[in-house]
């Protein structure tokens, strides 16, 4: 099959991808630089700045918090989102059409507004502990991902298989766990991991719900940047990119990365 592409477009595409990947290369380079300031290309090579991450307790502590928060928030959102996605896919005619849109609301409402409102109503208003407010906030912002990605799996699931199991004498709940769940495994894993990275990278919710003693890694990075400008930030960034690579590997193995173009 021959389709000719104008050379100008090819050049433009190459430039676009240089633009997309260049800055990330810059970060990796400056994380390796043997200088006390950020520079690129790196002058001398050292892994010192990676070691330094673990010298700064603010980083190690917030890393732990961010990880726990991402796991907790995503799990909570999965526990709530999977039944909803199942109901939407399985009982399409029984539920009003707008219900699907309800779960997209956390995307529609600006995150920063949600963060502010959660802080005002939950943390300040009813005195909910800040960690709990953070957890709820993160569960909320990843809910659209869990419902949508799991929902995509469920939409291509043939529910007559579940009915077959029930007709063979399997109770409905058991049928869900033994027949439905294994067949939408890819969607659940991909949904989990995409939600996880979204939560891990979140700024707009967390910025309002951090306080003395409780902070997340992105917020800590922001704060650190305002005071120091050494390669430690770059090395933390490289670590986060490593997480991204892992996430991409998982998505590729489950739904395939092209799923993200759908």
């Amino acid at each position, binding site marked *: 099959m021959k*389709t000719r*592409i104008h050379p100008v*477009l090819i050049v*433009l*595409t190459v430039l*676009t*991808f240089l633009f*997309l990947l260049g*800055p*990330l290369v*810059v*970060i990796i380079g400056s994380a390796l630089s043997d200088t006390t300031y*950020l520079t*690129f290309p790196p002058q001398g090579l050292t892994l010192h700045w990676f070691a330094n991450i673990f010298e700064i307790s603010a980083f190690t502590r917030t890393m732990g918090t961010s990880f726990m928060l991402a796991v907790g928030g995503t799990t909570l959102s999965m526990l709530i989102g999977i*039944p*909803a996605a199942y*109901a*939407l896919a399985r*009982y399409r005619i*029984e*539920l009003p059409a707008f*219900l699907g849109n*309800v*779960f997209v*609301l*956390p995307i*529609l*409402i*600006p995150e*920063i*507004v*949600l963060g*502010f*409102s*959660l802080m*005002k*109503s*939950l943390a300040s*208003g009813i005195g909910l502990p800040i960690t709990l407010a953070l957890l709820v906030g993160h569960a*909320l912002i990843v809910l659209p991902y869990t419902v949508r990605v799991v929902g995509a799996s469920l939409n291509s699931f043939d529910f007559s298989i579940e009915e077959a199991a029930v007709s063979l004498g399997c109770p409905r709940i058991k049928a869900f766990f033994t027949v439905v769940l294994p067949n939408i495994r890819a969607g659940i894993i991909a949904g989990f991991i*995409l939600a996880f*990275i979204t939560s891990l*990278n979140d*700024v*707009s919710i967390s*910025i*309002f719900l951090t306080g003395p003693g409780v902070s997340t890694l*992105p917020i800590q990075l*922001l704060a650190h*940047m305002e005071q120091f400008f050494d390669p430690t930030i*770059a090395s933390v*960034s490289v670590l986060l*990119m490593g997480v*991204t*690579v892992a996430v*991409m590997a998982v998505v590729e193995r489950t739904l395939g*990365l*092209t799923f*993200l*173009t759908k």
Partner: protein
Amino acid sequence: MSNRLRAWLLATPAILLVFIFLGLPVLATFATTFGDPKGPFSTYAAFFNSRFRMTVLWRTMEVALITTIISVAIGFCTAWVVARMPGRIKSLLIIAAVFPLLTGVVVRSFAWLVILGKNGILNNFLLSIGAIAEPLSMLYTQGSVIVAMVYLFVPLMILTLVGVLEGIPQDMTDAAASLGATPAAAFRQVVLPMAVPGLIVGAVLVFTGSFTSYATPQLLGGERQMMMGTFLYQRAMVTFDWVGASTIAAVMVVVTLTTVLVMSKAARKLNPMAG
């Protein structure tokens, strides 16, 4: 148990989560804006009469609009090429677009801090080739914010549009060619109109995303290039003016929802059959 009841029961926890922790707090924020003793709309009057606040609002709109236009242009051209590449190269390019997309906004904005700073890479490069004598102040300008925002949203645009373009069957362009349409005419009369709804969806994502962004304007715009997101944070957490912050929040929600509603309507109108 009827299917209807079962369906509602399964959906209830999620509905409650959204209602209690999103619906109520956001409504409470809205309510705050009407509770001013000087009258229910006095906070809005104050907002729209304040030159500073209006400057921030217009600046945010401007930055979001420019970001959207540039992202759409770059995204469309790139997606056009990516969609036409053979399988292996295409997957590599998609990986190259997904990687920055899944990398956090702080990391991605930080990269531009390193590049555009006074002692940054770009200044050092320009100095070393003698293009400039003094380092340029590129940070904390509208330009730096827009560059970083475009950087943030181009991957999203590429991925959305690759999906849209791949959704246009080869048969469509073949049919156009068989009827005598040159590649350019087929693009203009068939591909573009069919891509418009997807293009609008992508553009709305970019516009609302940049309109409500926080980390990027905070890092690359600073105080001087205050945008709605950073302004909201400053009012809420620095000056503790929660009524003022709530008003900013309400304006952001109204602008975002209006954009989404108007544009999705436009998308349906422009192409009644592909949506």
